[in-house]
């Protein structure tokens, strides 16, 4: 059973504190949302967990195995996958090739200059399986830059899933997608494998409350509160955090 | 002792020339994040213009220097606007290739106009000969170059640290998106900075023509030298470029005096060492 433990993580850029003593755990099957106003340090936290940034202090471990000193690719290989808030896809490649790149990584075949037929077929079967699950089969041969944005966001998740991770960090999977299309993305998120540990960063409170069984509220780099959706919704500090500062976030919280 | 003084004077004056030529590139690279390999071409244009003005119009060295510097600064603005701007934000290789293309055209044009041999720039009589400082005699012109370098450094420091133009430049170097959002006209800023940088390069090319002679392949010949100063110093920093220029100038000069056959190897090895140990340059901030 996977357990990701974040323990006392701090990070400053010069004098700017972007993460301050963040502690929480994420276990197999967890559906946890990470919320907080813009600039609260949510994406920074994802970068710290994946190793894109090095923490100033604190430790991160997976199943008791320390990750803090591991490089970014080593952490990905250990089972931590992420998506990006602004799509980072291989734009000039086809959807199929995007997935193949990820699958070759997962299967440790990326250094092969000769691929046996059986392995190539296995990779193709995997491509087909993932695309079918995400209802993207029709796009397999299309170049990513010609893809509608909603489908690009789906592919963003598909690349992370291709790694067959144990921990999945979703950084605003529906960001920039019109309301109507975000439904398809949330369906995919809802159908994620049950034993996967999932951390979701999201601004849309509707989606957060539909998805999460636990919510972590981050403000100015520190954990403000952790609790069930009901508890967090009732928490006065959280309301103040949103209503007090972030006008453009109102509409998501209110309706 | 005399040898040491000679190395020092020659090395520092050489470094000053490198500094004056390169500083504009460092600033524009810090600002626009664009690699302009053809920057040395501005030094070359300055040298050739000055020579032409002096020879064809019979004007003095000072007049040639002033006019050529201004002309190059003005000519560079449309180059920034209509050519370099097309590759802002593109891959470093695209920027390099576009500007290498410009170098080839500059070489061909210079050759067409001035031929393939060295074009000499006559320095004024007042700057030739020797001066004696303490027990040592030194070439007057070298001292002139060192003074000129310090004046440029001083003016740049003043412009960047003490004027509103400088504040805007520093803000835009730090973060152009934020600078733009607080109402700084980055487009105008880019043009002005590029123009000043090109003008300085022209100035350096003219007064340095005794050390780096004007020939049609100039822009290619000194390309690596100019880029080395910028990368070793760290782009966008005046101090960095100044230190790097002096360092590389001294290393090269010392090697020429002591082990002449290894002079250019010493230069490249110095650059190689700094960049492998500190990829962002001596004074550059890590990305």
């Amino acid at each position: 059973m996977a357990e990701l433990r974040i323990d006392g993580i701090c990070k400053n850029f010069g004098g700017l504190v972007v993460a301050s003593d963040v502690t929480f755990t994420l276990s197999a099957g967890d559906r946890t949302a990470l919320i907080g106003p813009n600039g609260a340090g949510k994406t920074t936290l994802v970068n710290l967990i994946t190793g894109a940034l090095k923490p100033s202090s604190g430790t991160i471990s997976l199943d008791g195995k320390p990750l803090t000193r591991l490089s970014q690719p080593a952490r990905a290989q250990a089972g931590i996958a992420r998506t990006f808030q602004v799509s980072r896809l291989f734009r000039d490649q086809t959807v199929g090739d995007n997935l193949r790149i990820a699958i070759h990584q997962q299967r440790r075949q990326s250094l092969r200059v000769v691929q046996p037929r059986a392995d190539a077929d296995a990779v193709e079967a995997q491509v087909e399986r993932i695309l079918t699950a995400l209802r993207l089969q029709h796009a397999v041969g299309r170049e990513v830059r010609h893809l509608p944005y909603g489908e690009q966001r789906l592919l963003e998740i598909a690349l992370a899933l291709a790694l067959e991770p144990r921990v999945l960090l979703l950084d605003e999977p529906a960001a920039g997608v019109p309301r109507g299309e975000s439904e398809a993305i949330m369906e995919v998120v809802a159908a994620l494998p049950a034993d996967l540990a999932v951390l979701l960063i999201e601004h849309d409170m509707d989606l957060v409350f539909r998805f999460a069984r636990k919510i972590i509220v981050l403000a100015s780099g520190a954990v403000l509160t952790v609790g069930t959706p009901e508890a967090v919704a009732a928490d006065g500090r959280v309301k103040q955090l949103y209503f007090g500062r972030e006008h453009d976030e109102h509409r998501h919280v209110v309706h | 002792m005399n040898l040491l003084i000679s190395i020092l004077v020659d090395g520092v004056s050489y470094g000053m020339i490198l500094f004056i030529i390169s500083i504009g590139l460092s600033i524009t690279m810090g600002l626009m994040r664009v690699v302009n390999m053809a920057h040395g071409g501005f030094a070359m244009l300055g040298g050739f213009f000055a020579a032409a003005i002096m020879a064809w119009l019979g004007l003095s060295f000072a007049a040639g220097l002033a006019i050529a510097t201004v002309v190059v600064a003005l000519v560079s603005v449309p180059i920034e606007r209509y050519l370099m701007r097309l590759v802002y934000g593109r891959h470093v290789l695209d920027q390099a290739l576009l500007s290498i293309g410009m170098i080839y055209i500059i070489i061909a044009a210079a050759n067409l106009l001035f031929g393939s041999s060295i074009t000499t720039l006559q320095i004024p009589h007042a700057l030739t000969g020797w001066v004696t400082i303490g027990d040592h005699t030194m070439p007057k012109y070298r001292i002139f170059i060192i003074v000129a370098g310090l004046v440029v450094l001083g003016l740049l420091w003043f412009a960047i640290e003490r004027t509103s133009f400088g504040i805007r430049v520093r803000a835009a170097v730090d973060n152009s998106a934020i600078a733009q959002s607080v109402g700084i006209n980055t487009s105008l800023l880019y043009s002005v900075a590029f123009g000043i940088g090109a003008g300085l390069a022209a100035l350096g090319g003219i007064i340095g023509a005794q050390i780096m002679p004007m020939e049609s392949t100039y822009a290619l010949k000194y390309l690596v030298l100019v880029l080395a100063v910028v990368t070793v110093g760290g782009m966008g920093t005046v101090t960095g470029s100044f230190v790097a220029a002096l360092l590389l100038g001294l290393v090269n000069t010392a090697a020429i005096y002591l082990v002449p056959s290894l002079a250019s190897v010493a230069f490249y090895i110095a650059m190689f060492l700094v960049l492998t140990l500190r990829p962002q340059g001596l004074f550059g901030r890590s990305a």
Partner: protein
Amino acid sequence: MAEVTLRRAAEATRAGRRTVPFLPEIILAVVGVAAFFLFPDDLAFLAQIVITALFVLSLSLVLGQAGIPTIGHAAYMGTGAYVAGLFAIHFNQDPLLGLLIGGLAGAAMAAITGALLLRTQHLTFVMLTIAVAQILYEIANQASGITGGDNGLSGVAVNPIFGVFQFDLYSHTAYFYSLVVLVISYFLIRQVVESPFGLTSRGIHSDRERMLALGCNVYRHLLIVFTIGGLFAGFAGALSAQVAQVVGLSSLSFSTSGDALVMLIVGGSARLPGALIGTVVFMVIQHVASNVNPYHWLFIIGGLLIIAVLVLPGGLISLVDKPAAWLRQRRAARG
């Protein structure tokens, strides 16, 4: 229905290459042989084109596929040339053995320097590639006792290939030898490009950050690409040493790296045939134009480069590719 389309699409991408095996190599060989009969008096020049094409092809792998922005690739061709030349003079005159040694020397040099260089990125990397090539250039220049310095390393002579094909005055053997090496190298490089390794390289080119997040050891991968590039650049150098029987300092020079870059960009760096097209176009124009005036020729390369960057980022090959893709789509829409 959807699954059928999916499978068909997947098969089409694969089958497109499998229906006629070795198709690109066959075309290359046919064009090469045709050139032999069409221009029998220019074989020395043709051999030079073929060798340069191999060099540019190695650059295409490094720069076009993996996006490694080197302006010092001549370092590895020059290393291959000098090592193969010295090997022939001092040890053994077998051409194939010399070719292999030259290639390995290029690869070894690329592996050693790449291990340092590839820790950096962007402009710093570009500058370091220039520095490496210049340092090697100066070493070859200074060590004139071994390399001949400025005069070049002369007297490189090799035995007949397989003991049969003597290198002749008319460059018959030289041309076919070079052509065969090019065709085989093209096949090998194409294998690399079409493999998972090649796909991963393009992924790094496209988005390095994403590759790291996917668990890719980007540094190691790029170092291997760089080493393979050094291997084929070394082959090109060894070929040039054996065919020209002399190794000049210019094999390590900045302009050798720069010219190869221009050829690649003008031809198109995203696909391998671009390297071949670019080499032929560049060298033929150069051959003609520099006979008129060597400096005016620079107007042409400069102009070509600027046009390639601004107007035709895909290079000449994209002029062929775009209509072809359009035709394919139309046919697919109708069928």
